[in-house]
């Protein structure tokens, strides 16, 4: 059982499938010599039942036209694959006839998961990969580590590395805000400092749910339409850099007399599935005629449309990322979490991490997120520290791209991967230790 010796003899198959298993979307694709974002396929990680009782698995969801009254089943909870029955159905559909058609027996797999998961779920994943799907070899890692293999130097404006051999990045503080949670992970040469990883259970899903609650209470019941609320969030929400100013702009005064500030308040028009299939944003129209039309009392012969104004609903829910206490959660927001994570590390490492904060994940696409995070982190550290916060080029697929770049470097890949044969010889606990980085110790 000497992994060192057998590693050089490993003959990996040529194809590697990189699977970034998220709670909302799966980002998957095959790596190549020079991977680009184009090779990454994104499809929903869910099984959905539409209004007409039709069941759509994974990427079949794109075929659906009517997103009203749709019911989802998500196998990934809080970043961990819990419902393997569902996940297996989605994976096997994609592997057989979907976006990532391949034969698992001849493919290497790189699978991501969230940090700090229950050990049992990790061994379940290994078992499923090797016994059910029978991949030739696999590497299961926590999602943040793959980002270290990205081109972080050009992201931060540092001088280019002499060659590709400079991977992975030396120092990186990764903030990953996805759908189900947000994590802060300090990485050194691509390896995480486990004691400093922090997680916050506020991210896309909670923001959407809060938005849906607010809209349902104030304007229009959208509680049964999570898909439409997600679209509203993507279209209209932003992170405010001056919360007080924005909230004043949305207040209609003591007797609803003050005029609302157009730059912040907008109208959102819902799709009616006959003419329009997707909602859109429109500047707020606070005239009386518009008010009547909204309530449906208009006598004018105009096409009936459902719309409602969005004021502090635009920036209130995203504010949760920075102030979870708004909703009653007694934990710190993302900037506080970064400080907590840094406080567990030796002082000497902190400046390096502060100067290399990389933000990935769908939620970081919210306008104003990076600026606000930059501002908040600067407030909490001495002014002589350099603070650089950058969002990856494509935050949703950045982790995938890191994995693809890792896979394109065969010697690196060989160091990390465990083959099916090794799994069968050495068993699941050994495999789990290998994946956790304890090689030969």
């Amino acid at each position, binding site marked *: 059982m000497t992994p060192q010796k057998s590693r050089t003899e490993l003959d990996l198959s040529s194809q590697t499938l990189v699977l970034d298993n998220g709670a909302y979307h799966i980002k998957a694709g095959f790596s190549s010599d020079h991977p680009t974002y184009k090779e990454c396929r994104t499809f929903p990680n869910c*099984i*959905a039942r539409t209004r007409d009782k039709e069941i759509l698995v994974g990427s079949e969801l794109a075929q659906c036209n009517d997103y009203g009254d749709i019911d989802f089943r998500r196998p990934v909870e809080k970043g961990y694959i819990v419902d393997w029955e569902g996940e297996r159905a989605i994976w096997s559909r994609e592997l057989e006839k979907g976006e990532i058609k391949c034969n698992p027996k001849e493919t290497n797999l790189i699978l991501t998961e969230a940090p*700090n998961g229950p050990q049992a779920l990790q061994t379940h994943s290994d078992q499923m990969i090797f*016994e059910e799907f029978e991949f030739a070899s696999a590497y299961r890692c926590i999602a943040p580590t793959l980002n270290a293999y990205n081109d972080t130097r050009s992201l931060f404006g540092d001088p280019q590395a002499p060659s590709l051999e400079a991977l992975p990045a030396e120092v990186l503080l990764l903030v990953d805000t996805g759908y189900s949670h947000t994590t802060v992970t300090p990485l*050194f040469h691509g390896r995480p400092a486990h004691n400093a990883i922090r*997680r916050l259970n506020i991210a896309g899903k909670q923001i959407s749910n809060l938005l849906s609650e607010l809209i349902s209470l104030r304007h229009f019941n959208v509680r049964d339409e999570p898909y439409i609320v997600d679209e509203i969030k993507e279209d209209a929400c932003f992170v405010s850099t001056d919360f007080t100013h924005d909230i004043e702009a949305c207040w209609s005064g003591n007797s*609803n007399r003050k005029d609302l500030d157009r730059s912040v308040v907008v109208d959102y028009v819902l799709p009616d599935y006959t003419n329009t299939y997707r909602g859109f944003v429109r500047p707020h129209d606070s005239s009386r005629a518009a008010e009547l039309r909204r309530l449906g009392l208009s006598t004018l012969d105009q096409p009936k449309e459902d719309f409602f104004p969005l004021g502090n609903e635009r920036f209130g829910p995203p504010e949760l990322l920075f102030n979870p206490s708004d909703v009653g959660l007694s*934990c710190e927001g993302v900037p506080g979490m970064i400080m907590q994570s840094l406080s567990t590390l030796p002082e000497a490492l902190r400046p390096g991490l502060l100067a290399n904060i990389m933000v990935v994940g769908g939620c970081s696409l919210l306008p104003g997120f990076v600026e606000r995070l930059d501002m908040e982190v600067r407030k909490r550290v001495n002014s002589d520290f350099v603070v650089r916060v950058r969002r990856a080029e494509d935050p949703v697929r950045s982790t995938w791209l890191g994995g693809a770049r890792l896979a394109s470097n065969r010697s690196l890949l060989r160091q990390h991967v465990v083959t099916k044969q090794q799994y069968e010889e050495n068993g699941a606990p050994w495999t789990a230790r290998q994946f956790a*980085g304890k090689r030969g110790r």
Partner: protein
Amino acid sequence: MATGPLRFRTPHIEELPTAQSRQSAGFAWVPVSGAQDDPAKNWGTTNRKRQRQSTGGQTDQQKEAVSARQQREVERRIKDLNSDNSKETVEIPKKPGQQPSGGAFKIGKTSGTKKIMSSGKSLQHHLEDEQAEIDRTGRREGEVDAPAPNAQRASKTPLHRRKPREDSSASNSPAPAVSSMPPPAIPREVVQLDDSDGDEESQLPGLPSAAEMEALLNAPPLTYAQARASSPPPGLPPPRRFCETCGYWGRARCLKCGAMTCSVVCKDEHDQSKCLKMYA
């Protein structure tokens, strides 16, 4: 006078009537602590808030009831936020026209995978299982270098024969017996294990040595509960409250249900549609 099972004489006690004993009044004068508000200020006040302040404060029971209700509200809110909006479990479609192995395909190829796929456990179950495992054996599944349970027992070896024990407790997973301790305690120990003179002495903190870095990176991962961001330090401003109706700053609290509203208009709205529902 001792009778029965008592083996020694109990002293005999009898109350003698003295000249000073008289009928007790049924009440006693007790010194009152704290300045009492001038009762004239509170006459006829229907303001329950001031009443609560003046009449010696709420009893602990009342305070608990109010805060328990608020706590339940907050928890309900957070649970709503975490909900997945799924009404019933969506059935996985059975693929028609599959080969005979199609049956096995659905259930799982090996016994291990069959068990995994048919288990209906949710994440909460797994987390609780792991916590129970840690409490029981002091280590997580898959970790070799965990302390044996008797490492916690008071050592019976005499002092001069005891070997230094710091290593065993510091290099192990943070889980055993320190699950209530905050994680920051561990890395400091880990760092001090190795070159302890590296960081502490110099003014400009030098980069940790390779050995320290290895120790840092090889530390076992935290459990789910330990990794969650902890509460903010005390002394920060209290959490901001918003108006329930419109979302502006909350300025006035509804006496019945405790919800904040910003203005009279919003408060009327609240009274009509939201207050009674919660109260009834």
